[in-house]
């Protein structure tokens, strides 16, 4: 049984990180979301603010941050939280893997988590 982390799941994961004000969709995810909807594609990999791209092995998260901890600290925490959520699923960057090779494959091709900080609310 494979479980796939969906973009919606990641929204929750990201928003739970302290210092994250919320998902803040920008160009990167908006165009993809619209495109997916127009093509009636399964929307689970794309949501406003989060894009999961198995082909490039990249997850992109567009966020707004709140003041407080240094930006890079919050960003790193987001990246690790997303990485953990992806690790929990058995899906590697290029689709479902046979269970016994899942962890091997993941080590060879780890997800890259790219964070795009859209805004920082003022002091």
């Amino acid at each position: 049984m494979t479980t796939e982390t969906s973009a919606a799941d990641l929204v929750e994961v990201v928003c739970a990180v302290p210092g994250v004000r919320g998902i803040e969709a920008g160009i990167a995810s908006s165009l993809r979301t619209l495109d997916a909807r127009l093509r009636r594609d399964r929307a689970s990999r794309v949501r406003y603010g989060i894009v999961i791209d198995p082909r490039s092995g990249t997850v992109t998260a567009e966020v707004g941050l709140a003041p407080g901890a240094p930006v890079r600290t919050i960003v790193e925490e987001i990246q690790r939280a997303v990485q953990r959520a992806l690790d929990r699923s058995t899906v590697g960057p290029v689709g479902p893997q046979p269970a016994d090779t899942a962890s091997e494959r993941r080590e060879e091709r780890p997800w890259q988590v790219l964070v795009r900080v859209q805004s920082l609310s003022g002091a």
Partner: protein
Amino acid sequence: MEHPDAHDRNGTHAADRVSGPSDRESDDEATQRYLDLIRSVHDEWTTLEAEGDSSVQLSATALSTIKEAVRADFRHGAHVEMPPTAAGPYTLSEQALRTVVRNAVDSVPGVIALRTTFDHEPPKGGHRTRGVPSRIRCRISAAAGDRDLLEVADEVRTAVIAACREHMDLTDLRVDIHIEDLHDN
């Protein structure tokens, strides 16, 4: 006909208000009533606005609609590459980057950030991104007073350099401070 209070209000001069032929033919009394009406209308507004009366200004709903629309139209600008964290790469919008610097400038007592611009290294990655910042130029307003302005500029520079290091791990930066204005503290 002169408007006796025209000179006081808003600094415009009574001489600017040249009367036309029709005014000279007007009843002095009528003209006085006219002037009185205008003056009392202004007084009414001043009082009512000070009391927060919504009849002379936008309703609270209209005001919040404007502020929501402003926030919704927020321009992030292009994205700027940053030194990656230990867990992966990230970018900051130009808007977020300016906010980091603005907060640092504002944190210096007596200093008000005005505008900030950046020079960038060539981008490593995708289109539409700018490279890592190489130089920052801060336009500021400093409190008028006895403080040495060079000292103030140095303090601002230090604060900006510290914030860039702390928030973004940017260490190789040139920071220029330009005191453009003085304000009363």
